[in-house]
């Protein structure tokens, strides 16, 4: 398996890239970052965080996998079409304000309520969070789309004007 960085021409890094430690760490750190990103996202309404940062971090976690492994492996790990992800995210973002109209309020008047849950106690339920889910998914999807495209080996092989070593 050739790593992405090898393809990029960084031969010296190559030896490191086959490092089992890096690959294993990347897997673990991936989970940590994703968890952190979800945490950031959900706490966004009350403490720092939100859909944009959360989405970027999620994309960052996946890019870490891309750097540690390579594009082919990544595609095997995550069978997601980023274009679809973008569509899904945009659809969520657009549907929420439209659905809110059914409450008889002007566009973008969010609704909220508080739920009593057994473990978590009082939990706020806010439509703004669902809207933010759309932002999260779109941001993550777009970032990944651009980066995986640039990394795409097929593209590199056929790219014209780029220097091949």
């Amino acid at each position, binding site marked *: 398996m050739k790593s992405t960085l090898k393809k990029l021409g960084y031969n010296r890094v190559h030896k490191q890239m086959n490092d089992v430690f890096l690959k294993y760490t990347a897997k673990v750190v991936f989970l940590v970052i994703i968890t952190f990103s979800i945490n*950031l996202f959900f706490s966004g309404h009350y403490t720092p965080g939100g859909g944009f940062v959360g989405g970027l971090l999620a994309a960052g976690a996946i890019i870490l996998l891309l750097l540690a492994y390579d594009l082919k492996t990544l595609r095997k790990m995550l069978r997601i079409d980023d274009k679809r992800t973008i569509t899904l*995210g945009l659809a969520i973002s657009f549907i929420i*304000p439209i659905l809110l109209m059914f409450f008889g309020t002007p566009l973008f008047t969010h609704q909220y309520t508080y739920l009593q849950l057994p473990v978590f106690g009082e939990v706020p339920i806010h439509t703004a969070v669902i809207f933010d889910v759309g932002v999260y998914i779109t941001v993550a999807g777009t970032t990944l789309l651009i980066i995986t*495209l640039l990394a795409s080996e097929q593209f590199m092989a056929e790219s014209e004007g780029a220097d091949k070593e």
Partner: protein
Amino acid sequence: MTLIHFAILLPVIAAVGIGILYRFYKKVHLGWFVLPIPAVITVYLATLIPAVSNNQVIYETMQFMPRVGMNFDVYIDGLSLLFAILIAGIGTLVVLYSVGYLSKQEKLGNFYVYLLIFMTAMLGVVLNDNVLMLYLFWELTSISSFLLIAYWFTRERSIYGAQKSMLITMFGGFLMLGGFIILSLITDTYSIRGMIEQVPAIQEDPLSMLAIVLILFGAFTKSAQFPFYIWLPDAMEAPTPVSAYLHSATMVKAGLYLVARFTPLFAFSELWVWSILGVGLITLVWAAFNAIKQDDLKAVLAFSTVSQLGLIMSLLGAGALAVQTGAAEGLFTVAVVAAVFHLINHATFKGALFMIIGIVDHETGTRSLKKLGGLMTIMPISFTMTLITSLSMAGIPPFNGFLSKELFLEAMFALREADFSVLADVSVLFPLLAIVGSIFTFVYSVILIRGIFMGKQMPATPKKPQEAPALMLISPMILTLLVVVFGLFPNLLSGSIIDPAAMSILNTSEPLNTEIYHWHGWDSPALWATIAIIAAGALMYLFRDFWKPVYRLGADAFTLNYLYDQGLIYSRLGAERITDGYMTGYIRSYLIYIFGAFVIFSLITLINTDISFDWGVTAPIALPEMLIILIILAAVTAMLITRSRMVSIIMFSTIGFSLSLLFVFFRAVDLALTQLAVEAITTALFLLAFFHLPKRSRHEEHRRFKLNNLMISAAVGVVATVIGLAAYSNRLFDSISQFYIDNVYDLAAGGNMVNVILVDFRGLDTLFETLVFGIAGLGVFVLLKLRVTKEGENKYEEHP
């Protein structure tokens, strides 16, 4: 949100479900699932008829964007109800017809989703009181029409027709928006009702003339009036159900609706009356004249539609005179009644004709008049229906077209009594043009009947002709039946539908008590005109070979289509030339534009305004901040002198991370978090992007180039610093942040102000920023994947 709002939005809501359903279930023709939607709306609207014909109006409001005055205010009177019933009713028949017309192999999901979007858009146009919402729905009809014309998007003619219709109708629609804005500036309201109450104010304002012209542009482009009609014949590339629905029965009548709706507002104006009357009559004659020379059946119908729209338009122009003189006078009231009546009749007979032409096309495989003939015995049902509807279109008794045509002639004769204070006395022209137009109409109606069904049968049709299946015949049959029923018993309509609609055009509450007769007595000029039309029409048809060479006169260079095409070519060339002038392809050029504009405009503002610098308000610089600044400076210097790209990236990241630390010290935690994430991703992005860069060192650059860069950066730095200081020293307004601090919890139930602003207070901004972000991503995808091959063809590589 009331039931009526729901009825308007029902098609578009259902479109989501229909689209999803089609992905997973294709056994049953999708049309059967769509059919109940317009049917239910029709029934619901029909239940409103009794109330509306008793002179009640229905007004329901729904808040959409109250701050900008853009609310979904539904207003139903006779006029809007008539249009709404036409839209939903014909829509039902068209969906039923399309089940037979479109085979299951077609992309049915696209078709019905577009059609449902159109339905909502069109209902929204006619049932709206708020001009901004009206404009929104108006453009939505243009967009859905564009999508439907380009339904077979692999055909070049479809794309051409779709683009043409979109360019022309959107051009008019945009001008119309300008007219609306002028009106709202004069009257200080976005409600059409509210505007009508302030007619005297509009009358006094000189700007109202401009508003009239702009709104008429919208109406004339949409309703395909001369000289904008050229898009309608090309729109015939759409599937026939679409032509029957959008480009004959409903969408093209939006312009008529607009004129009718604004008649109470603008009737005072001579400009309004005479331009509508004149354009309408010219369109009537010109399009009817052109319809005769067409060979494609749908082209004949397209020109015929244009001509009939002109007829109704001219009647509305004459109707405005009725508002001027007062409805009670009755002289021009007949014009309004005729307009409404002919609107209904046209929807019935032209809808049926389109469907029959679709059947002929479907069963023989051709629409060319040259290749068709003698189908009478093979397709007897279609023939009967064509006979009835064509004769109705030609104005032959006892069908409904005859009644409204006679009312039309009557109205045109009545115009001789009009007050010609503006124009010279041209009163003879009106009935004359009307009669000439009607003669042409008679001729092409006969051509339709004889060309398809009589004469000897042509063996050359691509398919062996046969009668259509019952499924396709039901819809045109219902419409043909209506043609006969309305023809025999016109007063079924007059009290319940025509009168309320005419009364809302005239803006009066006095009942009209219209009675429509077949027989007006021997002294009626309309009777003699009708006889003359039939006689002259028959003669012209018989001797058509003698005068048809007329069409060969006139060079191609003077046709409107030629002008349109040339205009398109030259505007594209011009745009390319301008764009090539500044799009150099180098990012450094764009940065120079951006920074140059920034520096120049800021300097102009700074020099021209009186500002003082107050050093007392600036905060002291703490040690950690100082350290970070030093790190940034060091990184910048290293970045400038290093030869390795790798080092540059690392230095660049250092700057970014230091900056986010700085944000932390300023307690902008959200900003710092985002900056950190962005930095991490940018670094990865840079690593990947560097592969594609040419192997050239920055140090081969010219000294002059470097000097320029230095000057620009220095100027930007100085200006940014000065603006920062000036802004901080000169607080002209209270800070907006206090509003958010006060309201973030009460109004939005959130604790994090930044995020609440993003998703709630300024949610719309975020929504469209997300959209831009997504589109940018897809744009990058297309740029990288779709590349021009050496042969100059666009090649698309599928994503691995």
